[in-house]
């Protein structure tokens, strides 16, 4: 019962974006993927969800290969995701954004739904109830009938996670869920995500907010230049000198950066701020 990457590879022409990544993601845990910009974090998410094709290797969920499947088939196998740039159905209400997730399971009954009103109202009521419950969990019930695109940014982030949860996914992929959120909202998000941990669910969070990652995740993968650099618990990651090197460079590097910055300021005629 795991999500597994095996020798995963992604190539754009000559550029290797993901290079031979193998990892297992156990259910019941929250896995973080971190790394500098361009390390391939989002690419991993996009390949898992079927948004990008895979150049080599395999992705499997409980032994079932996902690589050859179409994006909607991957979604129907239990993989749900959110996007780095929020992608809601803007002109639909918040409630409808969730209700539409019943499509794969219920579309076969459309004819009956159209021709037999009692059946339709029973279905509508059941969908509505289930979706309102999820909205309440995210404190979004007040926005149920508002157009998704009109919600405040932070609420939109929450709504997108809510949408990803409607089908009770076995794999939940969150691509930078805290991006653009303020401190208060991030705290709220961390609490909600922690509550979503479930024994059957694999949760993967790609995130730049280190507080969130270190608080929330049980396991962290550090990506660097498309390679898997380090794999361990938050404490191990924080202690690893390799990770520090990848993120910050060596002490000499930092001195170089400072010197370069000073030169540049001098060139532009910007004086260093003096403390008064």
């Amino acid at each position, binding site marked *: 019962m795991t999500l597994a990457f095996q020798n995963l590879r992604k190539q754009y022409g000559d550029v290797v974006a993901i290079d031979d990544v193998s990892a297992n993601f156990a259910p019941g845990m929250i896995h973080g993927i971190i790394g500098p910009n361009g390390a391939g974090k989002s690419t991993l998410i996009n390949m898992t*969800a*079927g*948004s990008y094709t895979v150049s080599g290797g395999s992705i499997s969920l409980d032994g079932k290969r996902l690589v050859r499947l*179409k*994006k*909607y088939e991957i*979604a*129907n196998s239990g993989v*749900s*995701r959110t*996007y780095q740039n929020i*992608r*809601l*159905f*803007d*002109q*639909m209400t918040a409630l*409808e954004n969730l*209700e*539409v*997730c*019943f*499509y*794969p399971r*219920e*579309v076969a*009954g*459309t004819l009956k*739904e*159209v*021709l037999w*009103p009692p059946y*339709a109202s029973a*279905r*509508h009521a059941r*969908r509505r109830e289930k979706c309102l419950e999820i909205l309440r969990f995210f404190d979004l019930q007040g926005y149920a009938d508002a*157009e998704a695109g*009109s919600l405040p940014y932070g609420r939109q982030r929450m709504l997108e996670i809510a*949408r990803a949860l*409607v*089908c009770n996914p076995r794999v939940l992929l969150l691509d930078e869920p805290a991006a653009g959120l303020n401190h208060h909202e991030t705290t709220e998000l961390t609490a909600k995500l922690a509550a979503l941990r479930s024994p059957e669910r694999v949760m993967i969070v790609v995130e730049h907010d280190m507080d969130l990652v270190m608080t929330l995740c049980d396991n962290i993968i550090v990506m660097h230049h498309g390679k898997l650099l380090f794999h361990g618990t938050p404490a191990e990651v924080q202690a690893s000198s390799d990770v520090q090197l990848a993120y910050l460079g060596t002490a000499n590097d930092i001195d170089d950066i400072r010197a370069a910055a000073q030169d540049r300021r001098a060139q532009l005629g910007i004086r260093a701020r003096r403390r008064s």
Partner: protein
Amino acid sequence: MSVTGTLYQARPRSSRVLSFLLLGLAVALIAATPFLPNYHVRVINSLLIYILLGIGLNIVIGYAGLLDLGFVAFYAVGAYSYALLASPQLGLHLPFLLILAVAAMLGALTGILLGIPVLRLRGDYLAIVTLGFGEIIRIIVNNLDWLTGGPKGIARLDKASFAGIEMARPIEIFWLLLVTVVVVGTVVWRLERSILGKGWAAIREDQDAARGIGINTTNAKLAAFATSATIGSIAGVIFAASQRFVSPESFTLQESILIVLVIVIGGIGNILGIVVGAAILILLPEVLRQFAEWRILFLGLLMIFLIIVRPGGIVPRSFGPDKLIRGLFGK
């Protein structure tokens, strides 16, 4: 659009008054039609046909967000189905209802045939390809002399009859059309509210995210094309039965564009909007008949005006049939 939406929500009484006014107007118009001269009844019939066409095309454009400029092809499929199966042309005289069923299936089939090659296209590209498709059908009909009579068309079509009642006079066609519009309108409205309708809306908003929640966009789009084409074809059958003559001239690109305008001016994605759009685009030219040379200019100005004042169409998406019903029955 959202601004007017909240206005209606904030003032349920005005929405209630509006609902009763609209219903009263519709009932009065329907009740008065039998007493109008034939010419006026014909105009109302043509209005109903455009409402029917608008409802059909709106599934693809308004619900699924796919700009189809070749809708008239399905209208032609229906019209020529009737013309070939109920005229001396092939010596066939099948009953009206049977032809209606055959044409509906043929329409769905052509809809899917058009749908398959354009699945990957959106926006402008889709518009151009569907436009080409509409023209292809018209040109085929125009040149297939042995079957369709070419530019001369097919004349002396049978009178439509149903359960022993002949439907040939304008007022009889009016009742036939009215029943069809009400039935088709109800089915389509319920379809819009069904899970398939929500899936179409999701595809319209963000196709890729729609796939991400497990929607098989290929099937959903083909369903939209097929349903829409079926309605176009049904409208074609009734049109042919009412004219008792068909020729390629009725199925030009201009016709497709007129149907798109009905939707755009009335209010995209809203059946009530289509009724309003059709009323304006069909009735206005009749009202302006004295100023024949100026008609197109008037229409053009009206469109520019509307697009500036109400870019989402006259009727907001939020004021749909549900609002109307809620206004009528309280709650």
